[in-house]
C-alpha cells in the first residue's frame, strides 16, 4: 500500500546468530555460508572485553587505572542522558519547524540545523560553552535589570541573580551537547515525518482534526516508531562524542583518564582501559538498538 514505508535498514543479518542461538544445518554449503556470515567481529570484541577484564583483575597497574577512571563514569552517563533528553525535545521542535509552512519557523529551524552542521563539533562545544552560554546569561541579566528599573523587582532579582560563574562547566557541557545533537536529531525527526504518506495527514484533517492533533495522534506516533533505530544510533554517537566535554575540564571518563595518564605516565593502562570502557558501552547499546529494530519489524 502507498502508505507503507520501508523500515530503516537493519544492519548485519548475521547478527541473528548470536541473538537466536546457532542452529547449524548439516548441509555442507549451508555450513560454509553460516561460517562466512558468522559475526566474527563480535566474538573478537567480546574477547577483547573479556581479556581486558581479566587483565584489570589480575594486573595491579590496570586495576588502579580502572578504579581511577571509573570515577568519571557517572559524569559520562549522566551528561549523555540529560543532554540526549534535551536534544530529543529540541530536535522534535526543530524537525517540526523544518516541515512547517510558516516561513519564520521554517527558516529559523533551517538556520539552526545548517549552522550546527557547518561547524566542527569540537569548535561547537567550545563555542557554545564559552561564548553561547555567557551571552545568554548576560542577556538574561540585562532583561532582569530592565525589570528592576520597570519596578518589578521580584522578577528582576530572579533574573539578575544568575551569573556566569554559577553556571558550571558540567551544565555548559550538557547545553553544548544538547544544542549540537538537537540539530542532528531534528533531521531524523524530519525524515521520519516525511516518510509518512500524505494520505495520513489528509485522512486525519478530513475528519476535522487540527494540524496539531493530526501530528500528535497520527503522524508522530508512526514517524517516531520508524526512526527509533536511528534515534538509538545517535544516542550511541552521543555517548562517544561526550568525550569532547573533557576539553571543558568536565571530569568524565576521558578527562580522568587523561589526568591519570599525565600523572602516572601509564599511557597504555589509561587509554586501553578507557577505550574498552567506551567500547563496552557503545557495543551493548548498539546491540539493544538492533534488538529493537527486529522487534519493530516483527510487529508489522
Amino acid at each position, binding site marked *: *500500500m502507498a*502508505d507503507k514505508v520501508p523500515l530503516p535498514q537493519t544492519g548485519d543479518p548475521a547478527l541473528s546468530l548470536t541473538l537466536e542461538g546457532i542452529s547449524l544445518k548439516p548441509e555442507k554449503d549451508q555450513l560454509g555460508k553460516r561460517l562466512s556470515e558468522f559475526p566474527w567481529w563480535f566474538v573478537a570484541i567480546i574477547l577483547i572485553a573479556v581479556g581486558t577484564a581479566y587483565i584489570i583483575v589480575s594486573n595491579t597497574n590496570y586495576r588502579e587505572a580502572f578504579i581511577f577512571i571509573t570515577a568519571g563514569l557517572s559524569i559520562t552517563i549522566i551528561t549523555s542522558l540529560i543532554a540526549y533528553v534535551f536534544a530529543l525535545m529540541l530536535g522534535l521542535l526543530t524537525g517540526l519547524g523544518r516541515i512547517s509552512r510558516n516561513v519564520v519557523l521554517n527558516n529559523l529551524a533551517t538556520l539552526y540545523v545548517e549552522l550546527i552542521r557547518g561547524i566542527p563539533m569540537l569548535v561547537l562545544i567550545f563555542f557554545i560553552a564559552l561564548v553561547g552560554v555567557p551571552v545568554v546569561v548576560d542577556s538574561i541579566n540585562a532583561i532582569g535589570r530592565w525589570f528592576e528599573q520597570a519596578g518589578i523587582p521580584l522578577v528582576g532579582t530572579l533574573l539578575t541573580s544568575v551569573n556566569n560563574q554559577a553556571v558550571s562547566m558540567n551544565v555548559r557541557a550538557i547545553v553544548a551537547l544538547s544544542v549540537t545533537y538537537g540539530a542532528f536529531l531534528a533531521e531524523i525527526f524530519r525524515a521520519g515525518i516525511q516518510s509518512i504518506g500524505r494520505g495520513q495527514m*489528509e*485522512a486525519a484533517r*478530513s*475528519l*476535522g482534526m487540527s494540524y496539531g*492533533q493530526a501530528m500528535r495522534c497520527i503522524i508522530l*506516533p508512526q514517524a517516531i*516508531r520508524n526512526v527509533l533505530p536511528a534515534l538509538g544510533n545517535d544516542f550511541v554517537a552521543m555517548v562517544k562524542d561526550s568525550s569532547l566535554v573533557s576539553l571543558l575540564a568536565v571530569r568524565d571518563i576521558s578527562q580522568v583518564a587523561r589526568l591519570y595518564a599525565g600523572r602516572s605516565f601509564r599511557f597504555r593502562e589509561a587509554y586501553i582501559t578507557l577505550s574498552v570502557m567506551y567500547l563496552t558501552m557503545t557495543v551493548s547499546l548498539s546491540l539493544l538498538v538492533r534488538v529493537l529494530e527486529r522487534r519493530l519489524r516483527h510487529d508489522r
Partner: protein
Amino acid sequence: MRNDQCTGEERDNIIVVKNLHKHFGEVKALNGVNLTVERCKVVTIIGPSGSGKSTLLRCINYLETPTYGEVWIDGELLTRTQKQLNAVRTEIGMVFQLFNLFPHLTVLENVTLAQRIVRKRPLEEARSTAMEQLQRVGIPEKAGAFPAQLSGGQQQRVAIARALAMNPKIMLFDEPTSALDPEMIKEVLDVMLDLAKEGMTMVVVTHEMGFARAAADEIIFMDDGLIVEQTTPYDLFNNPQQERTKLFLSQILHK
C-alpha cells in the same frame, strides 16, 4: 430509515460551488467549475484520468485550497480560517481510493479517535457509535484487528465507518473501489448503496456504472477541469449530448 431532513418537499442546496479554479503551478486542474448538490441527493462524477475529479472533491472540503472561486457548505462560505475548516470538515466525511486507515491504531481506535478528540464524545459513547457503524458496514468482529490484517474491501468499509461515526451531513468518495480486487468491489458498493437509500448526501467519483445507475440522482462528466455534462444517469448513458461524453462512454463501456 430515511434521513429526517429528506422528508420535506423543499430541499436546499447543501453544496454550492461557484466558478472554482485550482492551479498547481502551470497545471490548471479546475477551470471554473459550477456545481450545486441538493440535500439528500447522490451525485456521481466520471471523467478521464487527470480531468480534475479528485481536485474538485478535495476543494469541497478544502483539503486543497482553491485558487479562485467559492465553496458554500450548508449555507456557509468557506474561508481559509482553520477553525472554520475544522468544524466544516467534521460535517463532511471523506473516503479515499487508498483507504488511508491509521495503521498504528486498531479498527476500533480508527473509528473512535476523531469522535473523541474532535467531537469530544466520552469514551463509552464513541465506542458504541463506532460499533454501530462497524455493524452497519458488516465487520464488527474486526474491531480489535489492525488495518494491515484486513483485506482491501474490509479496510475500505472501516474507512467508511470511520467517516460515518462523525455523523457527517455529506459524504465524499474518491474512487473508493478502484484500488480493490474485483471480488471485493461489491461489498463496498453495497454499503454505499445502503447509505444512498438512507438519504445521505453523497458526491462519488467512480467509474462503477452499476452504482451510478442504481443510486445516482445526477451524473457529471468532467474533462479538462470543467463540467462537460450534468444530467440523470439514464440520459447520460442513453442520450449523451456532447461529443467528448460519447467518446468517453464508448471507451469505458466497451472495456
